[in-house]
């Protein structure tokens, strides 16, 4: 929203520099995004008088004019009468006119601050000198009008600055709308000026016509009949309308008004349209006008306006040519049974005002802002009017604004009043009264403001206040539809005086130490351990393209689907983290990274997991890793991934079970993994599944262009955390006696799993009379051999004596016997 400083000044005195004002507004009302010095744009433009205009010889449309600039322009060639010669191509140029002249070296305002500003000069047209140019309304950036030069009205001395004359020596403040969502009053200049006065500590005075809520209408009020009705106050709290005559579309509003409209971004059109826009900019109340004759012709000659809800399948052709299908949530203006407008949003084409319009109906109404907002979203309508309606303009405002509209249409377009005001006011509310104590204000703000200051602060913004001791009874002015409760008043007092004047303190607290949550602490540790293993943490999007799910073979119906994404890459919630990581492998290899691993800890969501007690989807915290090597693998890549996970577990003193996958696992988790080259990670104590380590399916490797050497894991972090929580300290005192080691080489059938040997070995060692530990040394298999050799180092130590060679041999031999029986191994 653009606010004109000069327009504000018509309602309140502003004596500080614009930058200072912007800082003050920023601190106490709303952020100002930018300040534009409008005066710069018009600084060289002069009002001049056309003294003579004669056809240029040899041209069918050019005129040679002599203009009187009051002698203010230096260094130009003048005739004996001191006049300057300008060639002008406009058909409407005439001697005696006052016009806007752009002297040589000035910039055409239309092109000001554009990529290629147009700078005027002294030109020679067919041997005739032309100094600068006489401007059209479009060249002055005031409207789209370019048929001829702009003729100025009034009695202006030639040589006067154009900017001064029309108060264009102005500053424009660009306001961040979003922060004023709750302030309908600030969407009008008067309301904004009231705030500016109040935050600079000045008393504001709202113009009388805006405070007079009983509208006065002159003219013949009996010529036309008009009735209005509203179905439900939930649709429209108040609807006012009046019939006016001779609403001549060719009449223009005063140039002065046009310049004000155009500087705040509204295109001047005709006096009637300008009146509605001008009053909307001034007060925040939008107005609409219908063609009277078209309206009555839709209802057997009767002028009856009916405000109702839209009907299912009902169609309406809008002013912009679109035909929309209405819903029962839309508010409709109807003539008889026929819809003629989408309330607050846009009029219908069937009642549009055109050159043949004789009589109009002017509407000033208050619609339900929530319904209008849903209409706005549903039909994609964004206009200055609906922007204001959806802030919730007060019903009281509609009367004085309609009254002002009638007055201005009469003044600018000679329109006459032809009917009484037709009114429906089903949503009449009393203005709230708020009782608030000085203590509540100060206790909430943490400040110490006395009653006099509270009264003055609120009084400046025209709140009516009665005080008794330390309590204030506050009558809220009608334009403050946002003020309902005590806290709203607290905000007003704090804000108008400046929140920055409040002394920052710290809350008084008990000395209670807070520990980070256990899981948070665990997750931080995991991140640091993973980084220590040379892995890089990534964060990737929670949403994926449907193709990504297809590429890993996850079913799309297991994902929550996003229905309104503006990007196709964000269609589905991901079911696991692995697919996101797989997508990063090839791009990084192409960047020249040969051997690396990526991990992510994040939440995943799967429809098959159902909802929580709160009826929101179950979330799972996962840890996923992918390790990739562009070079040929030295052995199956599975072991690389497992090595990292083993290390992570070891850091928490944990040893988990790896089990072959023979049954159907969770389909989302399993999808990317090749089951013959992957393992379930299982909690030894209760057999529950923690996650998977493994290599990827060939199709997945192909679809993600993975190198041959790629593997990874995906682990449920909460499940892992639960195991770690229950893990007890396994510290054993260190023995004072030396230990003995023996390497045992078991030869087993090539399909015997390493784990079987270890399991048997551990079983046997459990009963050993001494403390034992084992370490894998070698796994060997001859090419095409039917057996393999597994070498394990067994370490023995006693806590009460040095083991003799015999003791060691006996223990080892008994162990070998157990393992040999359990696994058909022979020791070599």
């Amino acid at each position: 929203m653009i606010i004109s400083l000069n327009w504000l000044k018509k309602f309140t005195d502003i004596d500080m520099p614009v930058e200072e004002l912007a800082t003050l507004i920023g601190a106490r009302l709303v952020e100002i995004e930018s300040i534009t010095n409008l005066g710069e744009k018009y600084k060289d433009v002069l009002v001049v008088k056309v003294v003579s205009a004669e056809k240029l010889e040899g041209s069918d449309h050019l005129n040679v004019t002599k203009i009187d600039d009051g002698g203010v322009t230096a260094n130009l060639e003048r005739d004996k009468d001191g006049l300057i010669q300008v060639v002008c191509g406009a058909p409407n140029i005439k001697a005696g006119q006052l016009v806007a002249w752009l002297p040589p070296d000035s910039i055409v305002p239309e092109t000001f601050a554009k990529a290629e500003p147009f700078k005027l000069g002294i030109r020679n047209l067919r041997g005739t000198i032309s100094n600068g140019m006489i401007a059209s309304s479009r060249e002055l950036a005031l409207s789209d009008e370019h048929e001829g030069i702009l003729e100025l009205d009034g009695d202006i001395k030639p040589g006067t600055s154009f900017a001064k004359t029309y108060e264009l020596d102005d500053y424009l403040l660009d306001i961040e709308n979003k922060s004023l969502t709750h302030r309908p009053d600030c969407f009008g200049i008067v309301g904004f000026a009231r705030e500016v006065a109040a935050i600079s500590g000045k008393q504001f005075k709202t113009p009388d016509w805006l405070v007079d809520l009983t509208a006065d209408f002159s003219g013949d009020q009996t010529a036309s009949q008009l009735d209005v009705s509203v179905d439900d106050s939930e649709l429209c709290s108040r609807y006012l309308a009046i019939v006016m005559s001779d609403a001549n579309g060719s009449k223009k509003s005063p140039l002065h008004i046009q310049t004000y409209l155009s500087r705040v971004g509204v295109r001047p059109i005709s006096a009637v349209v300008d009146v509605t826009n001008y009053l909307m900019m001034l007060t925040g109340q939008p107005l609409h006008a219908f063609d009277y004759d078209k309206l009555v012709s839709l209802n057997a000659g009767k002028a009856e306006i009916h405000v109702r809800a839209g009907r299912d399948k009902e169609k309406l052709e809008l002013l912009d040519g679109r035909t929309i299908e209405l819903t029962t949530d839309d508010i409709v203006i109807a003539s008889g049974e026929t819809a003629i407008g989408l309330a607050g949003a846009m009029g219908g084409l069937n009642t549009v005002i055109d050159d043949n319009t004789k009589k109009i109906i002017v509407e000033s109404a208050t619609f339900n802002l929530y319904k209008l907002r849903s209409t706005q979203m549903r039909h994609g309508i964004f206009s200055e009017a609906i922007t204001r309606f959806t802030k919730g303009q007060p019903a009281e405002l509609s009367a004085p604004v309609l009254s002002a509209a009638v007055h201005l249409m009469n003044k600018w377009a000679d329109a006459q009043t032809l009917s009484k005001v037709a009114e429906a006011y089903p949503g009449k509310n009393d203005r709230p009264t708020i009782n608030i104590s000085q203590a509540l204000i100060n206790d909430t703000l943490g400040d110490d403001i006395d009653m006099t200051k509270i009264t003055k602060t609120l009084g400046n913004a025209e709140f009516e206040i009665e005080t008794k001791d330390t309590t204030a009874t506050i009558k809220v002015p009608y334009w403050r539809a946002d003020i309902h409760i005590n806290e709203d008043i607290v905000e007003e007092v704090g804000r108008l005086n400046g929140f920055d004047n409040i002394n920052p303190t710290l809350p008084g607290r008990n000395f209670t130490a807070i520990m980070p949550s256990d899981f948070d602490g665990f997750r931080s540790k995991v991140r640091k351990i993973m980084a220590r293993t040379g892995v890089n943490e990534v964060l990737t999007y929670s949403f994926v393209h449907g193709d990504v799910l297809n590429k890993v073979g996850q079913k799309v119906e297991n994902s929550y689907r996003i229905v309104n994404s503006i990007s196709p890459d964000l269609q589905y919630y991901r079911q696991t983290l692995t697919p996101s990581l797989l997508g990063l492998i090839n791009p990084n290899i192409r960047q020249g990274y040969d051997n690396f691993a990526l991990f992510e800890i994040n939440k995943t969501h799967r429809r098959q997991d159902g909802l929580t007690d709160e009826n929101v989807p179950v979330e799972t915290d996962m840890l996923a890793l992918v390790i990739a090597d562009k070079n040929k693998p030295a052995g199956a890549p599975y072991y690389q991934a497992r090595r990292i996970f083993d290390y992570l577990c070891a850091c928490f003193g944990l040893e988990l079970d790896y089990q072959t996958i023979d049954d159907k696992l969770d389909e989302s988790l399993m999808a990317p993994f090749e089951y013959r080259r992957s393992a379930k990670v299982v909690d030894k104590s209760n057999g529950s599944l923690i996650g998977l380590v493994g290599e990827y399916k060939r199709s997945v490797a192909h679809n993600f262009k993975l190198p041959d050497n790629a593997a990874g894991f995906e682990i449920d972090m909460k499940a892992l955390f639960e195991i770690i929580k229950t893990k007890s300290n396994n510290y054993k005192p260190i023995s004072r006696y030396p230990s003995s080691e023996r390497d045992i080489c078991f030869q087993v059938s090539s399909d015997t799993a390493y784990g079987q040997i270890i399991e048997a070995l551990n079983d046997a060692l459990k009963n050993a009379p001494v403390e034992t530990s084992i370490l894998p040394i070698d796994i060997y298999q001859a090419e095409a051999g039917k057996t393999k050799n597994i070498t394990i180092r067994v370490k023995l130590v006693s806590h009460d004596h040095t083991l003799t060679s015999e003791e060691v041999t006996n223990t080892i031999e008994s162990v070998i016997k157990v393992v040999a029986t359990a696994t058909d191994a022979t020791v070599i």
Partner: protein
Amino acid sequence: MQNIDDTRKDLLARIAVSDAPRELLKVPELKQLYDVIKTLAPEERGAYGKQINELKLLLESAITERESSLEDLAVESIDISAPWDVNGRPLNLLPTEQGTQHPLTLELENVINIFTRMGFEAIESRQIDDDDHMFATLNFPANHPARDGYDTFRTEENFIPPAHTSTMQNRILKAGKSKLEAGGQIASISYGRVFRNEDIDATHEHTFYQCEGIFVSSTATLGQMLGTLRSFFETYYGQSLKIKTQPAYFPFVEPGLEFAIEKPAALGGKPGEWLEMLGCGMIHPNVLSMAGIDPQKYRGFAWGGGIERLVMLKYGIEDIRHFESGKLQFLRKFYE
């Protein structure tokens, strides 16, 4: 014009024998079928588009089937119980110096650490939530215009990927109610990933991180909020800081403010340069009521801000898209 039936037969036959069946989705015949849509009259497009979509779904399932039958071909199993492969050697980890933690999780840990020391509990926010927690319990009535500012995504079931960490406010307030009534205070931060349905560029992301705080007691004041926030930023930047505010509108606070600090020297700041850090305010009485807390007895303040901004300022990161890019080039620039 190309015939859909013929294309279907031809492609299904090719998928059945292909070693890389998914590649067949890229054949020109399919693209040509899609291109036909543009040439059709609007009323014919719907029916034709539906046929094309059915074709695509059919091909997809044939591809998935072919892919899984390809998988069943000889894949050698491995001994998953072994520590390394047959004839292999004990494996090394990757070089430890190339490992890194993500700068966003590092900074979040930092922020959580400071607030924890200040006495705030830290709670992670959800990544999928409902309208109730996103809007309704935060005093945004249905169809309230302030909802527009959040550009929320929605799922088919009308769940919402949260657009702010304030989704946790109602939960934290409810959980803290008993503590409050026993004479204590509620002091919590919630942090996590949030989502906005908007186009991305160097300064906008649809996925980012926020940290939010709430404090409720019988004596909370706006002055305490300013003091708490200043104290956090002073600790974070290790210097004393000037602060300023600006009125702002958020339905869940009253009054609502934007909070700015004078740019710290550590970031090359000069006096008079301000950094907008977060939005804050006194918790709206309706928000307290909706959590069953009596707004006549208790007051609170809340704030929320982005984490990316802190990290970008700290390191001088030029493009917010780097964070979720997964580029090692970027990730390996950060260390503890």
